[in-house]
């Protein structure tokens, strides 16, 4: 028997296509470039810190694209969102831009909503069309929210450019006639707890069905449905996202064992730094500029998913490990 690596005769072996920083992920069982992961984490963290969205909607498809199995991508993405949200919230706390009371009320509503959402999700899984349902709800909600936000924020921006009269921050409607009023000092609101509870429940429901933290729906809902100031919205949204995604991460780790700590570590390192930079960029922008950018991002994701559904895919077949459900 020859020594390891010895060449008995003939040609020399092919050179290894070794990247300088390839890393093998123990749970995902793929080898990826460490710098690529740091960059991905940083980009998503930046958006997270700037807009108060978790970024699960971005990180999951990106990880899938570089070859991480979908189940690992979802669970590990949630773990990364925990870190970038903590980082973002702490930055906002220093500016006193987190409404803890509002965040808690939203969270309570969110728990109830996600319970119902998980139930509906299981029902859809039994029917076997869950992927389609998820994609359609993405397109529908993101498209709707994105275009509404874009329209509103553009109008606000033009008004600000012309220097016309500033519209009142919020108008009194039937919402303010509801009982169980509560003071949300950081938001400057004195409203009933019922609308925040309902918004929380709606977002929790959608988050459970669409498999994302729900920051995308939460941020516009807080601005337009609850009338919260844009600056407070980012921190408050991140505050409640921490708990939602921490719960998701833990459940995935225990039930499906699909959280890859090594993958999470690299995404987190990029993510927490990105979140800090995103926050400092975000506070420098005007509220309506922030809303325009978020609206464009939401619309872009919606259009991307719609195209996936409408255009003929290059490969009609897909191979997934595991048996039929």
């Amino acid at each position, binding site marked *: *028997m020859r020594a*390891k690596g010895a060449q*008995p*005769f*003939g*040609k020399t072996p*092919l050179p290894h*296509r070794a*990247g300088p920083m*390839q*890393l*093998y992920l*123990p*749970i995902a*069982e*793929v*080898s990826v470039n460490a710098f690529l992961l740091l960059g991905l984490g940083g980009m998503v963290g930046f958006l997270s810190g700037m807009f108060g969205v978790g970024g699960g909607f971005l990180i999951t498809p990106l990880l899938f694209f570089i*070859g991480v199995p979908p189940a690992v991508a979802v669970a590990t993405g949630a*773990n*990364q969102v*925990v*870190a970038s*949200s*903590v*980082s973002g*919230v*702490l*930055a906002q706390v220093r500016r006193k831009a987190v409404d803890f009371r509002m965040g808690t009320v939203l969270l309570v509503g969110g728990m109830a909503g996600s319970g119902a959402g998980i139930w509906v999700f299981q029902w859809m899984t039994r029917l076997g069309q869950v992927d389609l349902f998820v994609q359609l709800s993405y397109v529908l909600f993101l498209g709707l929210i994105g275009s509404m936000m874009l329209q509103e924020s553009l109008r606000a921006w033009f008004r600000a450019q012309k220097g016309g009269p500033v519209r009142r921050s919020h108008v009194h409607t039937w919402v303010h006639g509801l009982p169980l009023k509560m003071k949300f000092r950081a938001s400057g609101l004195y409203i009933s707890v019922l609308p925040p509870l309902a918004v929380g429940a709606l977002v929790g429901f959608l988050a459970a069905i669409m498999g994302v933290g729900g920051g995308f729906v939460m941020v516009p809902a807080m601005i337009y449905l609850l009338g919260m100031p844009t600056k407070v919205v980012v921190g408050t949204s991140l505050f409640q996202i921490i708990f939602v995604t*921490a719960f998701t*991460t*833990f459940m*995935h*780790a*225990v039930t499906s*064992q699909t*959280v890859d*700590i*090594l993958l*999470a*570590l690299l995404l*987190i390192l990029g*993510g*927490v*730094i990105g*979140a*800090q930079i995103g926050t400092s960029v975000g506070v420098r922008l005007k509220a309506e500029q922030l809303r325009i950018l978020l609206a464009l991002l939401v619309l872009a994701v919606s259009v991307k998913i719609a195209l996936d*559904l*409408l255009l*003929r*895919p290059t*490969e*009609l*077949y*897909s*191979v*997934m*490990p*595991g*048996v*039929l459900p």
Partner: protein
Amino acid sequence: MIRRALALFLALIASPAAASEGIVAGMSQNRVSITANFDGSEILIYGAVKRDAPPPETPLEVIVTVEGPAMPVTIRKKDRVAGIWVNTEAVAVDAAPSFYAVATTGPLRSILSETEDLRHRISLPRVIRAVGAATEAGDTASFIEAMQRIRINEGRYRVLQGAVEFTEQTLFRADIVLPANLTEGEYRVRIFLTREGRVVDAQDRVIGVRKEGLERLLFNLSREAPWAYGLLALAMAAFAGWAASAGFRLIRT
């Protein structure tokens, strides 16, 4: 001394155990360790043909296969329904190898007969067992074909016709590259000698692919103590979030 060795060698060659041909083979390694910086590995399988008599006129051929652990997979197909592309049909394959490479001295079709392929399961379609597949589709064959195509594109399945070097009908070598996205388990290496499509001799070897070091530690923890693993993941996230925030505050002040 030399003469005695030569005599022994001649005796071995001329032993009267009929005109059979056998494989004497070795591998560059019989275990692959997946460590944190693992990015694929190259296995060299080499050997010689042991003969008792001069070989017949018709040439001998060599086939080398490497097969990863088998797993069930589901193949889905998209179709256009009301203008949008959705998964409509699915076929479940109960055992498809996670990796399969077949290297030969020539085109498989001409050096291996159908019956021998059926018996030894050498060619790609024969390796993927679709028997007893739970199916929701009428046309299973096209699904299996699609899986082969996809996995060949991913580098999981490799058909390397003509990749085995065979010198003087005696010495052979094959280099098989194992990809970076390797699954843990026992990898079966098989070497076949064929003549006129018939298998003359075959040998079986095993390469153990195992996670080592940090990979092993984290993988075991995630399976044996999922609670602790989940809490560790969360603690790491919370600490990193706090550290970045504190760090940036220091930079700014």
